[in-house]
């Protein structure tokens, strides 16, 4: 068991606590945008894919890497786009006219 594993475990546990505390308090009003936002954030796996694709070690690894980058990056673009679209809809004051 590499010792950096434990320090990563610390990070994992703490992040878990933060996650629960923070998400629990997201207004139910925004649960759908929350879902798409977490999609976008989940796309962070792209960083790992980028390295695989960029290291260019074997053809296999490069191919897999490229697909992986495309897949996760599309998540990021799509996720942020739609979350933004949704949130732009939420208006508090009496709005002017139907969209």
């Amino acid at each position, binding site marked *: *068991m*590499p010792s950096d*594993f434990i320090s*990563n475990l610390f*990070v*994992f546990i703490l992040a878990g606590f*933060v*996650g*629960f505390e*923070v*998400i629990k*308090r*997201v207004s*139910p*009003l*925004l*649960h*759908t945008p*929350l*879902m*798409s936002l*977490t*999609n*976008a954030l*989940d796309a*962070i*796996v792209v*960083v*790992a894919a980028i*390295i*695989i*694709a*960029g*290291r260019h070690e*074997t053809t296999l690894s490069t191919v897999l*890497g*490229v*697909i992986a*980058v*495309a*897949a*996760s990056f*599309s*998540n*990021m*673009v*799509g*996720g*942020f786009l*739609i*979350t*933004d679209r*949704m*949130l732009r*809809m939420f*208006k508090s004051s*009496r*709005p002017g006219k*139907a*969209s």
Partner: protein
Amino acid sequence: MISSENIIEAIYLVASALFILSLKWMNSPATARRGILAGETGMVLAIAGTLLNRGIVDYKWIAIALVLGTLIGIPLGRVQMTAVPQRTALSHAFGALCVTLVGTAEFYLRSPDVPRFMMGVLAMEVILGSLTFTGSLMAAGKLQEILPQRPMTYKGQNLVNLSLLAISVFVAAYLVVNPGARGLFPLMIGIPLAFGVLMVVPIGGADMPTVISLLNSYAGLSAAAMGFVLDSKLLIIAGALDGSSGFILSVIMSKAMNRSFTNVLFGAFGQVQPSGGAAAEERPVRSATAEEAAGILAAAAKVVIVPGYGMAVAQAQHKVRELYDALTRRGVDVKFAIHPVAGRMPGHMNVLLAEADIPYDRLLDMDEINSDFPQTDVALIIGANDVTNPAARSDRSSPIYGIPILDVDKARTVMVIKRSMSPGFAGIDNPLYYLDKTLMLFGDAKAFVGNIVRELGGAHA
């Protein structure tokens, strides 16, 4: 003294903090936009930081992949609001795909000399990743109604599934002991892929949202596992955040549907539908025309509109907006009662109504609004059913007994817009429809609301 690794790590640290803030700011619509900004900034930083990585020798392929991703991503960002559930499922599939592929690449680059421990985590990453991949695709298919919505069950199904899972775990264990056995790795992907499909097959289309959230947390976990393999705190944090989000949402949903996870996963709930539908027809109900309905609404002082899944499928939100305008113009006080699981995903009604420009301070949670119903003249139910079913309060035998519902039956008059007497998602009859105070308004939500608006002389579309 300060190596480029350290700079990158520092950038990742900032990115992680931004991700947390991004979720934190989602707690109210006022700060939510800032939340997105934080998320985007974090993402840009993280990617920029990664591109500094010395290991990267060739940026061509990365560039191509990024362009590709953008091309796929933009349409995925432009889908109809009603298509959000399947879009979400799809994006889990993509995320899981990425994780699985990276895991595979890592394995073949490193094996045979993969440290036992890391091999274990890697196995977990790949197994979670691949089952989430196919599982999410299935879910998306069912929601998009490419695949049959109704649950497909056969004897010993759960046994088959669990044994599949067991086998893949066994393979993983074997690989941990001797990581040289490259030949076995495909098995460790293939079997979970199959499992993912079979896992979702027996689950009814309407249960998908819960499944999606569950898959969401799997996706998060697999990302975190990848973080452990690559010793990347950034991935671990993002994974943990994503995982807890998915978990909490699925808990909220199953609570509001009073179901247990196991029940959702193995229950094949949907089947009940027919029986409930049949029982319905017999007893008499009072129905009314759009004209009558319009009259009653115009005469009311306080109206609470209860939207449900039906409004979503009918795409009636803009007509509802017109109704809201027409009534408000006549000085009627109009509120919306939003049940936590109205529709087919958490917050479903809120986005639709927001899409139609209805100010969100008119949308009230179940807890806020329930006390108002006794003082309400008309409760207008538009395509909602289960979330208004009084049986949940009274009838111990009902499958939805005990779930918190909207007390519409406390209002002076109840009007229900739906196409027929057929039941909702839970597949059970709704006693509400047989009350004397209840008027059934049969028809498609969009069309019927449109007629009411016309009667009120308020159509401006």
